């Protein structure tokens, strides 16, 4: 009993794993077609996890399983946001998936296993744990994307996702092995100490670092490792696209923090330059290519690439301000993306995907409220105040400028001006153009409510950004300053 009570920082993960087994068994026993019981059980599981995470929160940093696992404020905050984002994703996509016959028990349990993967990634303090978390997440994701077996596009994009994802994992693993060779350890703390003491093998380390950065760039979808993003976003069922685009980005942020900042901070001089190239290319290619898209899912894919560039800009500043701005950016990005994809699914119905830009034409005449919510989301993505997207960009630019990257800041500013154009175009379609069809919108009450909360949150956080910013700053500070 005493051993179990020492495991309390990992209770959330353990609970989640147990519940996954329960849900799988319960689901196989239930004949229901709509999976209501399993769905509710999944939501209850996520709620339970949040309660456990809050209850097991301690001030300070706790290590577990001989240093394989860490529990600090950053991981708690990111985990809570992950539960929230997964839960919102399920609410948004339920009716969309039911109509398409995809709302199955497998979907729910795979969603939870990928959540488990994210939690492990967020709390990893050893390269092995990081890698295990990443693979649990990635393998569940491949299956989720491929769930729509009879669709050639979905299968193709699952295949692409799998092959490129596997390659990225290979890159990461190779890089990790180099770092192991250079320092003799896989433990993040030890690696950092060895490099700081100057005992590492520099050539191996730099070599390994290059592979790690490439692998991370693959996972984040930063240019030039972004080729899979548009195809997978476009091909996967919208619900799955939303999933890929949201919660895993939080885990990916934790991944970047654990590897580059906690383990390899002494090598910042090397990775900051690499990230600078990735950031500028991502912002440039993402924003410029997004203009040419006619499919809104592809447009969001390129917009994601651009947002990842911004996130990297925060990380490469290499200061506490920079890391906390990147974390804030990741959180805000997830919030906005959930809303954006939620809106696509809300406008879709049986046999019709509202994934073409023209499907948004005249939305203001069909539903002024939804159009207004989408307007808030679009201006937020473009970074126009008073929406919260502005503060995300503001804090990243501020951090980069304080770190002396004036050229990068000016490049970022110019690319966000270019980016504003395609977000404005959606507002233009909704407000200035006449609708193509006057068919009455069927709005599911739960998704409509959620999209309203989502849109208003973007506005309210924009008026009162203080708390969330302070939480991000405190998390980063605690994880980095109190090892």
């Amino acid at each position, binding site marked *: 009993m005493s051993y179990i009570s020492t495991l309390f920082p990992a209770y959330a993960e353990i609970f989640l794993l147990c519940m996954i087994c329960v849900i799988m068994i319960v689901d196989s026993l239930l004949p229901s077609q709509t999976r209501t019981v399993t769905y509710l059980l999944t939501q209850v599981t996520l709620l339970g996890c949040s309660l456990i995470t809050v209850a097991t929160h301690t001030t300070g940093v706790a290590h577990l399983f001989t240093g394989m696992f860490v529990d600090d404020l950053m991981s708690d905050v990111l985990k809570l946001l992950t539960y929230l984002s997964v839960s919102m994703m399920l609410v948004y996509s339920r009716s969309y998936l039911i109509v398409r016959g995809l709302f199955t028990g497998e979907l729910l349990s795979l969603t939870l296993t990928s959540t488990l993967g994210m939690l492990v990634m967020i709390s990893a303090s050893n390269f092995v744990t990081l890698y295990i978390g990443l693979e649990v997440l990635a393998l569940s994701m491949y299956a989720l994307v491929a769930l729509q077996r009879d669709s050639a596009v979905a299968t193709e994009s699952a295949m692409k996702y799998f092959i490129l994802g596997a390659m990225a994992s290979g890159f990461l693993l190779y890089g990790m092995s180099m770092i192991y060779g250079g320092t003799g350890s896989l433990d993040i703390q030890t690696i950092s100490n060895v490099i700081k003491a100057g005992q590492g093998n520099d050539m191996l380390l730099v070599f390994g670092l290059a592979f790690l950065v490439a692998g991370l760039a693959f996972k984040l979808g930063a240019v030039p490792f972004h080729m899979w993003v548009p195809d997978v976003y476009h091909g996967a069922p919208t619900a799955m696209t939303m999933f890929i685009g949201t919660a895993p980005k939080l885990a990916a942020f934790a991944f970047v923090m654990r590897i580059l900042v906690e383990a390899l901070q002494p090598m910042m001089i090397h990775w900051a330059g690499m990230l600078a190239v990735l950031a500028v290319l991502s912002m440039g290619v993402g924003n410029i290519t997004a203009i040419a898209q006619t499919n809104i899912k592809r447009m969001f894919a390129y917009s994601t690439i651009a947002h990842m560039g911004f996130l990297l800009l925060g990380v490469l500043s290499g200061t506490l301000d920079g890391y906390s701005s990147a974390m804030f950016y990741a959180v805000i990005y997830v919030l906005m993306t959930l809303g954006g994809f939620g809106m696509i699914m809300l406008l879709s119905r049986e046999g019709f995907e509202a994934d073409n830009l023209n499907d948004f034409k005249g939305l203001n005449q069909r539903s002024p409220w939804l159009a207004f919510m989408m307007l808030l989301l679009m201006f937020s993505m473009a970074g126009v105040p008073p929406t919260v997207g502005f503060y995300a960009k503001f804090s990243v630019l501020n951090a980069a400028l304080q770190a002396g990257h004036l050229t990068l800041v000016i490049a970022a*500013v110019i690319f966000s*001006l270019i980016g504003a154009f395609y977000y404005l175009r959606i507002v233009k379609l909704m407000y200035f153009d006449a609708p193509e069809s006057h068919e009455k919108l069927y709005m599911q009450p739960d998704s409509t409510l959620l999209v309203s909360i989502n849109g208003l949150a973007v506005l309210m956080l924009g008026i009162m950004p203080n708390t969330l910013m302070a939480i991000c700053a405190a998390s980063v500070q605690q994880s980095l300053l109190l090892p």
Partner: protein
Amino acid sequence: MIFGYPLLSVVIWLPIVFGVLVLATGNDRNASLARIIALVGAVLGLLVTIPLYTGFDRMTSAMQFVEMKNWITQFNIHYHLGVDGISMLLILLNAFFTVIVVIAGWKVIEKRVAQYMACFLIMSGLINGVFAALDAVLFYVFWEAMLIPMFLIIGVWGGPNRVYAAIKFFLYTLLGSLLMLVALLYLYFQSGSFEILDYHQLPLGMTAQILIFIAFFMAFAVKVPMFPLHTWLPDAHVEAPTGGSVVLAAIMLKVGAYGFIRFSMPIAPDASHELAWLMVTLSLIAVVYIGLVALAQSDMKKLVAYSSISHMGFVTLGLFIFNAYGMEGALLQMISHGFVSGALFLCIGVMYDRVHSRQIVDYGGVANTMPVFAAFFMLFAMANSGLPGTSGFVGEFMVILGAVKVNFWYGFAAATTLVFGAAYTLWMYKRVVFGAVANDHVRHLHDIGAREILLMAVLAITVLVMGLYPLPLSEIMHASVNDLLVHMARSKI
């Protein structure tokens, strides 16, 4: 907090709250309810600004009605409001024009009335915020946020080419704003604060000052607009609905000039002196060249739009000759131009509502069918060409006087506007109003009704009073102008 409540916050948020209420009336079935709520909101918005005028201390240049609260502690950003003699007048102007545009759009706007009225009310609150903000980030938030309602106003209720105009308007202004943001971040880096008043005292080297000046220039010159960044304005004006044009001309352009006064000049005084030649040249090009361009227009709205650019050239000229005549003249010109150009756009709107054309050739002999209207139009046309006794004269005369003191040829070039301005305005007036009735459209015109007469009369009285007795205005701005000139004379290097 003189009256026991945060006056400036009320001035900012009351129109916004009413805007949301108007939105809540929903679709066009409740259009009349939306109009009434909007009018109540606009009138209340004007009433709450009156204590700003009555309670204003004319003796000091310090900020008044100050409110200060923590907002974003991590970056030391405050919710800091306050007005001086310059910004207070602009807030009054804005609140006044909100009432005007609500009444002007009363009958004309028939589709999506609630959204139209809400856009104007929300924008009015945001513009008040721009004038009252003393924290740079707060200023920036209001500054950018006011683009959103204007973008929708042009794009939803505008003319045939409205989409192009709306997007051009938004992107042009966003470009300048983003560069300003970089400058503000740099100033934060230097001073550790986002207080505008702290920036005024911050010592800066010449290179830094020049770079900051250029970044601010991009933001404010687009808004003024100064030659050669003016090309968005004719498009936006022509395509915007009447109310949109009125607010653009009367208020939004002033925001740019206000930016120069509040940011560029006091933060980078040495750079301002160093680059004054550029500012003066661009201003004179605007006055002379754009005046000639206005002469060649066949579209009335475009003509008034170019005339606005030309008149705003006077404002920037007055600011960058650094003497009291120029500065006060520039400020009076800002206010006067607000009234005059707003009134001219309303006049054009009156005709457009009836004939649905803005082309000068489609009119002729309007005086025969609309005599009352023609009389008002005459007065505003005269004010636009700077006739003594109207508000248009005072500001222009003072700026010319100030310019002659600096350099005779500056004054000479600026004075040509009295010729060109009269030429393009009165020539347009002649072609539209005088002569025989040109066609059936004009023959079937009916004169303005009580609602329109009310609007015109209020504006006409203001234009005349300002022209004959400008003292109450200059009295208010006097202390702030002097303080700014003294501040500008000290080097910050």
